[in-house]
């Protein structure tokens, strides 16, 4: 009984590896997630856009979201990102941004869930996964959840090692 084309896990691993190598060749050494968060520079490389026919619409909304973030209008920025997700629900960088925004607005539990959602869609994006785990680690500190911190830390190290 045929399924639709579906990646085997091994093939995925190959893809992940290829993606990571290509990411490293364009951006040099993988950045430390803690540094990324602490710098306050929210325009992370891991949020770079992908090629998509809906990209122009998404770009407009992401620019709007950035403009609102500059003004610290986090609710409006969140609204713009949710519009992105109505256009492309599987757009992992938008979920990741929502996680970052949740951290800025002291909602660590929400930050964890948004980052997990982003990771569930970012199979071929280890740099984005690492960033999301960094968000989770930061959130775990706010939640004082040692188990979550350890899990996030372990995932970051594994991704860095990979």
């Amino acid at each position, binding site marked *: *009984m*045929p*399924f*639709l*084309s*579906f*990646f*085997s*896990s*091994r*093939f*995925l*691993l190959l893809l*992940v590896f290829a993606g990571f190598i290509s990411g490293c060749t364009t951006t040099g050494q993988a950045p430390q997630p803690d540094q990324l968060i602490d710098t306050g520079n929210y325009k992370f490389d891991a949020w770079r856009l992908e090629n*998509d*026919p*809906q990209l*122009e*619409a998404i*770009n*407009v*909304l992401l620019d709007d979201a950035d403009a609102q973030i500059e003004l610290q209008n986090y*609710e*409006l920025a*969140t*609204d*713009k990102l*949710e*519009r992105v*997700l*109505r*256009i492309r*629900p*599987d757009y992992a960088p938008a*979920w990741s941004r*929502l996680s970052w925004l949740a951290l800025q607005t002291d909602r660590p539990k*929400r930050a964890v*869930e*948004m980052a*997990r*959602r982003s990771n*569930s*869609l970012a*199979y071929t994006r280890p740099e984005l996964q690492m960033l999301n785990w960094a968000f989770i680690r930061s959130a775990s500190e706010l939640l004082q959840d040692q188990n979550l911190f350890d899990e996030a830390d372990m995932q970051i190290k594994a991704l860095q090692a990979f």
Partner: protein
Amino acid sequence: MPAKKTTKKGAQKSATKAVTKVATKAARKKSKTGASKKPSTRQKKTGRKKTRNSKGRRGRGTGFIRRHLWLILGIALLAFLAYLFVLDRTITQRFEGRIWQLPAHIYARPLELYRGKAISTEQLGFELEYLNYEAVDRLPDAQARYMQAGNVFQIKTRDFVFWDGKERSRFFRLEIEDDRVSRLVDLANGQPLDLVRFDAGYLTGIFPAHSQDRVLVKLEDVPDIFIKMLLLIEDRRFFSHHGIDPRSIARAMVVNLTSGGAVQGGSTLTQQLVKNLFLSQEKKLVRKINEAFMSLLLELHYDKRLILETYINEIYLGQQGKRAIHGFGLASEFYFGKPLNELSLDQMAILIGMVKGASWYNPARHPERARERRDIVLKTMQQTGLITERQLQVNMARPVLTVKQGRSGVYPAFIDAVKEQLQADYRSEDLSAEGLRVFTTLDPFVQHKLEQSVKAVMPTLAKDNKLQTAAVVVSPTSGDVLAMVGDRQPSYKGFNRALNAKRQIGSLIKPVVYLAALEQPDRYTLATLLDDSPLSIPRPGGDVWEPENYDKQFHGKVTLYESLLKSYNIPAARTGLDLGIDRVIDTLHALSYPYPLTPYPALTLGAIDMSPMEVASVYQTLAANGFHSPLRSVHAVLDKNLKPLERYSLDVENRVNSRAVVVLNSALIDVARHGTAKRLAQNLPLQVAGKTGTSDDLKDSWFAGFSGDALAVVWVGYDDSRPTTLTGSSGAMKIWQRLFRSVAYQPYALPPMPGLEKAWIDMKTGKLSGQGCENAVELLFIEGSAPRQKSDCSGGSSNWFLNLFK
């Protein structure tokens, strides 16, 4: 209540003082001129004709009046002042506080267009009609107009204020190819356009008890020509009188006397406003006196422009059922489907003509009368030089056209869901009085198609019209409720089955039972063989629970996969009992079912009552691969001044093992291809996943399924729980299928998630098999959980390296 109020400070005090002063002076004057002496002379003259006793009484009475005239006058004056004070308080209290109770206005989600957006020309045409855009045969020269030529649209959208700010009107060209937007060009500059957001379509209002509805407009937003036209027809000397206009009254009296009836009124706009706001419509002298004094007081206190603005928002202009249409702002939307500042001259003249008699000159019901009245208004304008002869001819030549009415309240089931969500944050009196603007998640096209599906399919399912249905459509990724129907007559406002009918879900529980199993990959996989043999469970009361399969047969050893596809009962019950019913309940709770449950064996076969909305919430978690988003019907709320009040943000929570959900969903895809819902595969062009549900004795027919962009749950059954002749696939699924043929664009695709693997499995033994082997099916497994034992046939392409690239 208008946003801008111009109150003259202390006007009330000074007015009362002034009136008191004048009255006191008059009293003093009368007492100085010896007014008390005269009545005694009069008494002597008249007293002669009376008897002695009566003379004495009269004499004593007049004497009393004479002696106490100053007192009587004083009391009369005080009474008059008290009367004025009461009138004054009535006016100021209303104007200083909330002039009107403003209903909440509820809007659908706005349509957003961008290159690549999936939309058919049929849907876009529907959306434009729904928004009351006017189709024209030339380039649109005003907002809310469009020109269509085949699959090419040229559209000018409306300005609109959303939660995140004002969306300005856009003028653009759009092309649709293969049910997608292929080109989007800004006609203002010829450049490609990235994103267009339309205005949100009006759904209905939440009205106060008196059911008055209005859309407030500010005077500065009312076209100048409209104001001139209104004053010309209703009150030419508005800016020069003080509330009442003796000249108008005299003119009206002359006209009425000469014509022998009441043909002309002499009331000013202020008097009309006073009558509408504070007084009854009865034609009594007392009311007229009150009206005159109140008009004077109103003008004393408040600026002319505020009075005019209030009049424009107060005037009664029609009725729709219980809903009373007040104000030109709402009347403009109601009759012509556009805001006041977009009306053409002839449409303005129709509305102003309606002031004379809203029902008599109703353009929707009596277009001929409305046309005659409109022409009188236009001719008056031309006679006074407001418009030219040519403008007169052009506007008089136009037909009286109104937009279709009756949309209000047409989605009662969805509006119930909106109220339910809002009631968590707002008191019901605020919802009907504070003029909130509520932006909902309703997709009008999906709602339209759902209603069409219900209306088309229900008569085919049973001869009687007692058979009922309810359905909910949600966005699988965000939990946004896109559409809802609570009755076979979707516009019926009674019992909302989508929210409130709790019915046994039958086999819809099976994915929950099997998910609980698949979350333990060391014990259960899709290839696990389950026992489909007679099962007897003693009950506490002494009897025995003996579940049966729908076909009354026992099938021996069957894989979990086959058991789910064919919806066998006994293997599901055994699995639930093996896992522990508490474990199944935990999984159901994790999937969002909120209520406590008592563990009993029949629960594993769906002996649990749930509403379609609750089922949709559970299945949303499955459709989003384990990430639950609470279902929401409202996105945002603005206050009456269009300032953001509340935003209901997208929430998400990973409730269950995503890999287990994806494995389960791979089987639910096959339910829709080869299982109990296999008719879907023959009728739908895209991949979907779903599950049929049938309760005991065919009392309930369910179907829950999802594509990539929509999830719908449909229930069919009788309110009194008598048996139907329907299973899930022969009843509810037919509505679901018809709906998805027109609203689903994205297939449900299994996410390429790491940690999963596929293997060919022999359905007879549950062992590894090979492609091409008899009874071999390719199944999905959480990595490491696929069976290791091989069946006799290993097939031709079991090589793992080749499988890597399948």
